[in-house]
């Protein structure tokens, strides 16, 4: 006998995977965001901001190409002179090196103060091949006059060229990595904000997993399942919300900075508009954390089942009770749902579709005393299918509890039970036996 059927997903697996992926997404966010912040944020800001900088005449004091030695930025000697500059002895050795730097020193007067700058563009280290660097310095011969662009808020900061350069597009890579990490983290947080994970008694009953600390099976077969408090999830969301908002606070302070001198320029507007989704996400995360913390103080439900499994056409005792909470239960609904689930891959992602095919309403009461505690006989119909777990497809039966507390987040708890095939003693089984005899 061969089989391709394996164990279904367990709660422990799902929690472990979530923790690992959160860590991975956080690392992606930090790496991508860090590289973008360290190398690209300021040049991008300057390129946009410099459209409003003051155009100021300047005099070129020095213009040349110097080799960059491996492992050191120190030039071997004076820079090679550009057009009109004095020829220097380094000219011969410069051509031998692979990487070169353009060196242009210029003087400008701003607000009556004479200043010297070496900045050609916003990324200071202008390096490349000798020919490329020569092309740059040829535009600024020594002793000539040119125009530079001075930052009015920081007059010591000036550049000779302020146009957009394709090198800035490299920012797309760290930015994409950072956005991927952020999206992954947010999706994990949204999952945490959802209903608590399904507790799988069916997996325990069929010996596919060991009982968790919230599911206890007594010697007489009675099963007690207490809903999780949600405290760990609330703390996780709170920590993520605080971390995310700490990052967003840098962005907000930058936005405030751009507005401090009145209506900002192109960069200020772009930054302000692009920061809106991050601020909204931060507010959403904090709201989610508050919601989850409130949920921790809800009454905690406990379900008590007289047996580990329920045969089709059979019955079991089902009891429920709540721990003391912030307020009494206003309405309790308890249903047994049959669901068909299928897991498939699409676009590199693994998705699970689920559809409820049978809903058996067990309890629906608004009487606080009845809602707080009770028990009933749960009778399973015999005209349906038992639990079945494949690797990709499954039939699951879930006890779903939903309780409302006035002016407080609602309580949700799900427990997957094992629905077994009809036993020969049940009416369906008796019919089957008769048919078998008849067929024989």
């Amino acid at each position: 006998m061969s089989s391709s059927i394996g164990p279904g997903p367990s709660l422990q697996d799902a929690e472990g995977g979530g923790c690992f992926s959160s860590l991975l997404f956080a690392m992606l966010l930090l790496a991508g965001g860090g590289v973008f912040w360290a190398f690209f944020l300021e040049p991008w800001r300057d390129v946009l901001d410099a459209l409003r900088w003051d155009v100021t005449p300047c005099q070129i004091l020095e213009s040349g190409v110097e080799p960059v030695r491996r492992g050191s930025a120190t030039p071997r000697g004076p820079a090679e002179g550009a057009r009109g500059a004095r020829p220097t002895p380094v000219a011969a050795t410069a051509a031998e090196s692979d990487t070169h730097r353009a060196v242009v020193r210029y003087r400008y007067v701003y607000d009556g103060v004479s200043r010297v700058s070496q900045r050609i563009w916003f990324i200071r280290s202008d390096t490349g091949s000798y020919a490329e660097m020569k092309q740059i310095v040829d535009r600024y011969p020594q002793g000539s006059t040119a125009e530079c662009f001075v930052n009015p808020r920081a007059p010591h900061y000036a550049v000779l060229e302020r146009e957009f350069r394709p090198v800035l597009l490299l920012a797309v890579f760290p930015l994409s990595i950072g956005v991927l990490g952020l999206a992954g983290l947010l999706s994990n947080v949204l999952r945490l904000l959802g209903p608590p994970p399904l507790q799988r008694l069916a997996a325990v009953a069929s010996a596919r997993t060991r009982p968790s600390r919230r599911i206890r099976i007594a010697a007489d077969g009675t099963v007690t399942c207490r809903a999780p408090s949600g405290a760990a999830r609330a703390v996780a969301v709170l920590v993520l919300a605080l971390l995310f908002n700490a990052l967003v606070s840098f962005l907000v302070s930058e936005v405030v900075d751009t507005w401090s001198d009145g209506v900002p320029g192109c960069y200020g507007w772009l930054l302000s508009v692009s920061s809106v989704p991050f601020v909204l996400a931060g507010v959403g995360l904090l709201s989610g954390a508050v919601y989850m913390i409130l949920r921790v103080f809800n009454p905690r439900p406990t379900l008590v089942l007289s047996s580990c499994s329920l045969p089709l056409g059979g019955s079991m005792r089902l009891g429920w009770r709540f721990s003391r909470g912030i307020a009494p239960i206003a309405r309790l609904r308890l249903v047994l749902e049959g669901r068909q689930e299928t897991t498939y891959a699409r676009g590199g992602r693994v998705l699970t579709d689920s559809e409820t095919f049978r809903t058996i309403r067990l309890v629906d009461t608004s009487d606080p005393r009845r809602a707080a505690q009770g028990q009933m006989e749960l009778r399973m119909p015999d005209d349906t299918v038992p639990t079945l777990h494949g690797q990709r497809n499954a039939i699951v039966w879930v006890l779903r509890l939903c309780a409302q507390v006035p002016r407080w987040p609602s309580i949700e708890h799900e427990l997957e039970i094992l629905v077994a095939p009809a036993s020969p003693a049940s009416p369906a089984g008796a019919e089957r036996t008769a048919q078998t005899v008849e067929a024989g």
Partner: protein
Amino acid sequence: MSQLRIAMAADREAFVPGERVCGELSWELHPPPRVVELSLRWRMQGKGAVDQQVLETISIVDPPPSGRRAFELQLPQSPYSFNGRLVSLQWELHAMARPAGVEAQRRIVVSPSRRPIELETQDEPAEPV
């Protein structure tokens, strides 16, 4: 022409769980196969991969080029045949001659009602507590 055929006893195609499935496997294969196998299996099909389980296999090693063999296979208590919007399960008898790869299959229904269970959306009212 090579052929492999599964015939069910009394032409039955529907069974209840736990019942025995009886029939006859016949073949006429040129060149003669090394082995002819008959398997009882179910396949659960969803949007993605198929889950399947082979319950029992009968192997006929070095059979003559043509012949017939009666079989009797025991069905388990579950799963049942069902049709759902997302997931469906079918039972079948599958025969294969190796190494030629000649195949035959016969779909059967396994459920207490001898009809595939339709997983249609049903909502039942609450009982009084």
